[in-house]
């Protein structure tokens, strides 16, 4: 019995050593602090600006600063008091400062901010009625429009060839160059509008080939990295809740200079156009997905996305849910590819 107890004691000592060895863990908090997410909302520091006069043409920027007690969704809109130009910042950080609130004079909604005009920033919160308003900022120099990129179309060249198409002519009321609204850039833009009468969702579309845009068979990029190539365009929304836009990037997978929908891949990106005005939309091509339409680009002959083989771009107008209660439509202006970063006019 004594021998048995001795062995058992040894085992217990071994277990105790294991307990002591095993109980040491990193005791930092896991994840974000709950009080930062669900605590009481307070504005700890009001909205301030780093300067009240700014020359964007000289590369100056304006930093906005405010401090909240918790992380909560907010939107800061900087509005040009003369032009109506609009820059929007969105975040849910409680420390509003640095890159998330640093303005270089660029826009989110056209037109551009003008030299000599004044701008004011307003922050509103998704979950709280409070708002913050900044001091007035005087713009002494406007941001120059960035150059470069691969222009798909600014819809100003009357000789550029487009391919417009629709499922049924009676669904489409407009599908062409227009100039009745103030354009985002220049004076012309393309507009599509219609009503889905047969419940098929699709209304009409516009195709712009690489040949038409650049004179080359494929859109020319200096990189084949899909993370570095951005599509950018101004999209005009009417605030219609059922308007969906699909942008198709059709690949000439076998490099024969033509696109065969049943054999070659189409990668697309869907946007719900629920705003009013000309909004700048940008995304890297890495965010596009292989088409799910049977026989319409859902089979990629090479099995992968190849941005250097894009031969044609299509802008599709869809009526969400196939409803016909109200017409749907959007405008497109200044569609351009950029490399390395999104277009920031």
């Amino acid at each position, binding site marked *: 019995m004594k021998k*048995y107890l001795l*062995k*058992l004691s040894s*085992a*217990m000592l071994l*277990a105790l050593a*294991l*307990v002591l*060895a*095993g*109980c*040491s*863990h*990193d*005791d*930092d*908090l*896991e*994840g*974000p*602090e*709950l*009080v930062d*997410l*669900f*605590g*009481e909302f307070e504005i700890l520091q009001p909205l301030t600006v780093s300067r009240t006069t700014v020359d964007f043409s000289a590369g100056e920027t304006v930093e906005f600063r405010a401090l909240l007690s918790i992380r909560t969704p907010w939107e800061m809109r900087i509005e040009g008091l003369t032009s109506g130009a609009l820059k929007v910042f969105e975040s849910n950080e409680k420390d509003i400062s640095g890159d998330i609130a640093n303005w270089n004079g660029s826009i989110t909604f056209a037109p551009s901010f003008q030299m000599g005009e004044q701008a004011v920033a307003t922050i509103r919160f998704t979950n709280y009625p409070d708002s913050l308003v900044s001091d007035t900022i005087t713009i002494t120099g406007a941001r120059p429009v960035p150059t470069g990129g691969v222009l798909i179309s600014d819809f100003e060249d009357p000789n550029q060839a487009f391919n417009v198409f629709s499922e049924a002519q009676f669904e489409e009321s407009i599908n062409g160059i227009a100039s009745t609204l103030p354009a985002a850039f220049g004076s012309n833009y393309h507009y599509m509008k219609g009503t889905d009468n047969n419940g098929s969702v699709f209304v009409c579309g516009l195709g712009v080939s690489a040949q038409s845009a650049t004179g080359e068979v494929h859109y020319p990029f200096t990189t084949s990295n899909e*993370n570095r190539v951005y599509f950018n365009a101004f999209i005009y929304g009417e605030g219609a809740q059922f308007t969906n836009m699909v942008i198709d990037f059709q690949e000439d997978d076998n490099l024969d200079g033509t696109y065969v929908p049943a054999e070659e891949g189409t990668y697309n990106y869907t946007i719900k156009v629920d705003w009013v005005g000309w909004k700048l939309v940008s995304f890297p091509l890495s965010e596009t997905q292989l088409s799910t339409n049977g026989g319409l680009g859902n089979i990629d002959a090479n*099995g*992968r996305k190849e941005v250097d083989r894009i031969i044609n771009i299509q802008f599709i107008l869809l009526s969400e849910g196939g409803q016909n209660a109200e017409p749907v439509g959007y405008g497109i202006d200044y569609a351009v590819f950029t490399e390395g970063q999104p277009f920031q006019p």
Partner: protein
Amino acid sequence: MIRYSFLFVTLVLSWTLAGELWAQEEKKVTFGGAGRFWMENNSIDGDALEGDTTTATREMGGYALFDLGITIRPGKNAEIVAITRFNSELDGFWGAGITTDIRQLTARGLIKEKVRYKVGDLNTAFTPYTMYNFRPELRVNEASIFRNFEEIINYENFYQDSTWRQQGAEFDFALAFPKGIKELSFRGLIAKNRQTDFFFRPDRIFGAAQVGINQGTYGRVDLTYVNLFELAPSAMFSDATSMNQVMSARYDMGMDKENSYLGIVGEAGLSGVMYENQAATETIEDLEDSFLEVGLRGKLKKSGLMGTLSFVDVGPEFRSAAAQTRRLDVTAPSGAFTRIGNEERVRPMSMGDIITDRNVYSRTFGPLLGNFLPYLENVQPFGAATPNRRGITLNVQYDGDSAGIFGAFVNTALLSEIRGQGTTELRDFTKVWGGVTARLHRIYGGKQKLIFTAGASYQSTARDGVEGVDAVDLSTTFVESGLEYEVFSGMDLLGGVKFLSSEGNEFLNQRDAFDATTFYNQYSVDLTETFFAGGFRYNFNETVFLTLQGHFSTIEDNLTQRNSFDLNRVLIVYNMFF
């Protein structure tokens, strides 16, 4: 100098696990398999369908399947098993909807009667912290009427007790020693866990090795190493990889006396998760942590009483993919009335789905902690290896009196978090569960079986509030019971009920692709759920039965009325394993 000598242990071809389709006869070719016919007529009603003009409230479905297994023995020490499945949906007349699949291909054998090997489809488990497929929720001490469905679900998803199905190769051999230790056993496994997409997602491999040291008199220690890793060269356009390693020592040592046993059981070890060449811009942190389970086990053999008191400490960053993956996939769509309402929303999973639907369970394991429903399980949602838990567990089991009339067990877990989630306050967890089985016919000497079963569990989670953030207070009570009466030889009258009530609130972790918590979602629950089942079962023999049952399931969600519904079913199942 001490010289040790050892002998290879002579092995036999008996790697059989419960339910595996290895025929026992030593014929050259033998057949085994399974067959099933399943037909159900479902109806749905309740608040969830209020104003619903699109959902048909009645539907009929089912299938017939036949698994034909052929075991071929080309020699004395080799076997090949191939199982082909023929499946026909109930409405798949004249060939439509009929599919044929290879369900299993396995070869196994002995090399020189010393090394056992097995290649192809493998059903494998190691230890509860390294590779283990733990039992899902809502099964404490099930009645016979529910156990049949668990057997079908386990068969369909390749679960054999606690195994996961993988494809690869496995071997084992053992050495016997004349003194000191009795036996030294070795076991190795290499398996493919995931197929590459050839472009961005690499192959994932699972490897495992185990050395078992069996002292003989005082017990054994098993040293286990497992590694779930990715092969970067198998994806052309990405060299991003991850790796999850776990090392453990499992021990079961004690003194075995004629009338009693007293010993120490448990497992201790380390884990690490390493990421390389990830494209994500945010900082990705490797995870390293340890775990420990050490318990004192006692057994009084004459009385059939056994108990284990354990201390458990599983680190917050302990990760073990093959031990933490959940069987129940709470994101899987339910089979009957998958979508309801004019907006065609996904119907919430009900108790009836969990108990009977073979398609809401995972077939393999993966590296991330899965989703779970806190009202079903919040104390150890990832099994014994649930990370961030420390405390005491007590298991007591009564195997039964000499007449075999009663059996019972009760388990308790009193745990708390080790690391706070978003706050320095720690959650406290309490869970008590137990069950009783009574073979009542043995009391009065009846010839027809009359078996009563009951089980219950209670679990609670609590955490103090802090600076305007709500406290956590969540509790769930679950009760189940059933009766099995043999009306005449082979014919059973079956009945069973499961009841669950849950109320309270929680914060659910929202994790990114690297398992880091990025946000918390507030979660509230106030519901009751009842599942009644009754019917008859005719047992042609121990492995073949025909049953006719009625199921009546009710969910009353007091927070979201549109999630309240009644789901009823009449079911005919003919099932055979041969």
